[in-house]
Structures are given as C-alpha cells and as structure tokens.
C-alpha cells in the first residue's frame, strides 16, 4: 500500500477504528423534500484542520443511541473548515438525521473506502453522469476538478432527476452552468411547465449526447437501474469498461472489511470500493 493510501485510512481514537470522532452539525440545508445536506466539523480543531480525504471516500456517521450509516463525503477535498454530507431519508438512522438541528453532536468515522483516481484522469476528457442523490459522490470530484481546471480537458456533466424539485445542489448547478468552461446538461423524467432544459431519462440523454470516448473517462452514479442503462449507452458510444467508473452501494456496518456483509464475491465494497471501474465489476460474480 502506498503512503497515500495510509494517509486516507481511518485510524480512530486510540487506534480503535470502531470508535468515532465526535463532531457537530454547523448547518443544515434542505435540498429536496426528502434530502438534506449537513455541514459537519470535528470537535477536535487540530484533527479537523489535518483531515484529508480523496473524492469518493465515505464516512460512517453516528447518532448515538440510533446507529451508524454510510454516507459519501461530498464537500471538496480542499475545503478544510467543514465536511459535507447529503442524506436521503430512508430508514432509522437517516430519519433521525433529518430531525437534527444545528449544533447537534454526532460521531464520524472517516475517511473510509477507496476513491476516484483523479491523477489518472488528468489530461483527459471527463463525462459525469448522475441521477438524483447520485450527484453526491460526483460533486466532490467535480469541485476538485474545477479547482484544478487546467489539468483536465473537456468536462461534461449530465445530471437528471425525476422532477425539478428532486435536483440536488441547485446552487452548485447554477454556478456550474454559469461557468463557460464546462458543459452541463440537466434533464428531468417528465415534462413540467417552466422547465427550460432537457426532458427524458438520463440514459437516453447520454445516448443523444454523442459522447466521444477518445481519451475520455466517464463517471456515473445514481439508482442501480439508471446505472445499468447508462452503462449500455456508454458502451454503445464506444467507451471501454476500463474507462467507466461507478460507485456501488451495499448494506454496510463496520466499513472496515470485518463485519462481512458488503461483499460482492471476494471484494468488500467498504474497503475495495465503493469506487469500481466497470471492468472490475465485470470480473466479479453477478451479485448486484
């Protein structure tokens, strides 16, 4: 393992990776009716200023007495004053998070898991394909690339949701659309009055975009069914499985490769993932 991997591995207080660091919520934003973003700072100021992670890495957030759940860190790696998480109300822990207000104490174990190899992507054309909350892991990478814009060639973001109300990070989307140096395509599933962008499912929009696979990588994240069809479209456009990255979801507990549940064949999503190339996925047993 290279040093960089060690740097981005969670140690935990007293070298106990099950113990979280304590943190506080400093802001809560309503993204959509069932999605909220939380900005979080570690109680330990020094730890906070030293905290480093790579785009795609995740955290186990704790609400003591309720439990722990996995969320991707979606703030930019260069943002040192807080970490951001976007949480969709799903079950026990996520609902409890939605009830939190600013100042609430939480626990955090991060960074966990692997990441997008941004270095390998330098000098290439980048296509992002996101659906709904799937923009969360992409956001970190996008913010990172925009901060080092000169290192990457064309950047194209294709993002869709069911309705305009379900689009996450509307402020970011507006910022990105305003910039002249990247291409943003927004789409919603069905026609809505007042919507000025595309209408149609994300995979269809990907097909229509006539993407050029030459010297390109595609990064996609969203609901499994969307990913499935996006992959088909990307392959049709000539993307090779090695050129396509995605992040996987699996029920998780420990995040350390120990509790067992997140395996796909011999790979554990929590330590070998969540980022995989489509080529890697093809080599795994079909157990998604």
């Amino acid at each position, binding site marked *: 393992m290279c040093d960089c991997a060690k740097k981005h591995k969670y140690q935990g*207080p007293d070298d106990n990776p*099950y113990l979280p660091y304590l943190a506080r919520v400093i802001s809560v934003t309503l993204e959509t009716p069932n999605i909220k973003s939380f900005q979080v700072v570690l109680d330990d100021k020094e730890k906070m200023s030293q905290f480093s992670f790579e785009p795609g890495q995740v955290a186990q957030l704790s609400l*003591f*007495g309720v439990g722990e759940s996995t969320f991707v860190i979606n703030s930019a790696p260069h943002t040192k004053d807080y970490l951001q998480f976007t949480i969709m109300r799903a079950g026990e822990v996520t609902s409890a998070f939605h009830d939190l207000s600013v100042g609430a*104490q939480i*626990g955090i174990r991060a960074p966990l898991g692997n990441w997008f190899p941004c270095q390998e992507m330098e000098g290439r054309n980048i296509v992002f394909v996101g659906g709904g909350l799937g923009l969360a892991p992409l956001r970190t990478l996008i913010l990172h690339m925009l901060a080092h814009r000169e290192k990457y060639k064309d950047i194209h973001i294709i993002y869709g949701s069911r309705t305009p109300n379900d689009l996450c990070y509307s402020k970011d989307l507006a910022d990105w659309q305003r910039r002249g140096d990247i291409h943003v395509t927004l789409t919603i599933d069905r026609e809505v009055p007042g919507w000025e962008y595309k209408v149609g499912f994300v995979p269809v929009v990907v097909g229509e975009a006539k993407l050029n696979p030459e010297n390109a990588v595609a990064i996609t994240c969203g609901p499994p069914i969307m990913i499935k069809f996006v992959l088909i479209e990307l392959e049709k456009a000539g993307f090779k499985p090695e050129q396509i990255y995605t992040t996987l979801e699996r029920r998780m507990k420990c995040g350390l490769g120990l509790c067992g549940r997140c395996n796909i064949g011999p790979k554990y999503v929590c*330590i070998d993932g969540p980022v995989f190339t489509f080529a890697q996925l093809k080599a795994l047993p079909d157990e998604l």
Partner: protein
Amino acid sequence: MPKLIPQNKLKDWLDNLAQTHEVWVPQDQDGMCVIDLYQAEREINLESRTRFSAKELVFPQTERLFKYKYEKDKDNPEHVSVKLQTENNVPKRVAFGIPPCDVAGIEIISKVFDDKGYKDPYFKKRREALSIVALGCQHPENACFCTTVGGSPSKAPGADILLTPVGDGYAVEVLTAKGQALIPNDLFDKLADVDAPDVEKAQQKAGKLLPAPMVISPSAQTAQALLKAFASPYWNEATAACLSCGICTFACPTCHCFTIVDEKCGRCGERMRCWDACMFPLYTLEASGHNPRLAQSQRYRNRISHKYSYMITNNNILGCTGCGRCIKLCPAGIDLRRIVEKLIPKSE
C-alpha cells in the same frame, strides 16, 4: 520429553490454572456438551464434542464496543455533548481441552481480524489474553471431515499446549512460551515422562478414524472452482430446503460476521456488536428495499463461497475446519460435504 498427566491429576492442574485464569472447559449441561467456566465441583467432559465451538472466547456473541453518554453543558443547557467510553480489561483465559478443529477456527478468524488491513482491537485483546490447551481428538463424529480440509485430529497449530490421550492419561506437549507459563512445576515435576514415539502412535491412530481424505487445498484452483460454479443451478437444488436460520453460522468456528447496533437507555447507552449471519435475509437488505441476496440459495452460495473461495483469495486459507457442526445441527439436513464434493474438483 513430554510429560504424561494421568486422568486423576487433571483436576489438580485445572484447580491450579483456575487460580490465575478463567478456565473454560467442556462439560455436560442441559443434555449437551458445552464449553463453560471450570468449577471444581462439576464434572468435565473431554470425550464429547462441544455443541458450539470455542470461538465465543475470542469473539463473544454480544460485545460492547463502547458506552456513550449525552451530557448537558451546565452553563448552556442547549449545548449537549457526548462522552464515549471503552473498556480495556479482558479476562485472562485458558481454553482447556478444545479439539484441533476449534483451535483452527480461532486461527482462521485471526487471519481475518488480525492480519492485514484493518485489525479488530476487541478480538486482538481477547486473543492475546487466551491460552489454548488443545486436546487431540480420539473420537471423530459422523459429520467430521477435518482431514479433507487440510486439518488433523491430532495436531493443533495455534495452541499453546497439546494434549494427546495416551493410555489412561494425556501426553502434555508444550508448544509455546505462553503454554510453558501454564505448567505448574510442583505438579509436573512429579509426573512421569512419555516417549515421543508413543505419542506419535496415538496421534496417527486418530487420523485413521476419519474418512479417507479427498483433500481440498486452499489453492487458486479451488477458489476458481466456486466462482465458476456461481451461476450453477445446483445451488437451487442443493439448498431448496434451507430455512435461512442462524444455526450453521453461529455454530461454525470460523464464521465471524457481525452487526453493529446501538441500545439506548435514556441519555446513556452502548454500541454493541452481535453475531450476524449471511444466511439471514436482513443481512444484506438495503434501506431502498433492494436485496442483492434475496433467495436462500444465493445466501447459501455466499456462505460456501466465502469459506471455499473468497477466503482463499483474500486470506490464503480455507475458511472451514471440517468440524461438521453445520452439518449435524442443520434443521433441514443440508450437508455441506455433498455440495463441496460436487462443485470442487478433487486435488488428488
């Protein structure tokens, strides 16, 4: 030269150990043989196989990870903070008279919890505090097949002391320094020596009681065989009767999966980990309702593949000791041996 401890001196040794350690030893209780705390007044049973393995000594079914407590700031009651607290003390234990397959189980879990990658501090502490006095096995059961998976009924790598039944006593072979510390000199000085060849002979005899081994090695071919069989319809056929219970995993000396849960009581509470099982449908159920292993055949396939393929790939070992517990306790009569035999080609 190993010493020979006669049956009637075992109690003296156990009493001596119990002064400094929690001694866990097989004994009969409620119609079964279990591993439990040694009590001078209770009979021990070194003849039968314990119902469950000794893994609970290093990996208890329920274990507290930490306690938490919410505290209000005196000056600013709106401001609530959490305090976390862990425990550092684990008892010094001796597992006395456990069979080689149980030792192998603990060794296999060590490979997962305390080798490469993340290490499990809770397991590590318990493992370090545990000394193992293994007992060579003389009475393989119907479901035993340790020699098939590369084990032996009479050798116990990982143990600190190995006992081998010889005549009316046990040959005591000290294997480690930790084991040496368990030998009370005043008792052992008085014991007779036993010839190494006699011990060897007794050990060989035990091996012959097992079925002629079809050896499965932890090789890349074995790992591949199950990956190749992943889509085989045989899984459905072989596991149709499976009830998705927790018996085979909980009884297994190598199964080590767990869930993490919080239990609260007012402003305090604890985070615990409890054994979980890949045979339970909820194990992989995601909040969205999606379950990548919906069918019991998929779950059973994971159990076998984990032991006979994924652990080879990830840890270089077979994840099965051949103890046979999952076979003899399965309420649906599912026999792992038949499945393994069918799907993994014989080595030689």
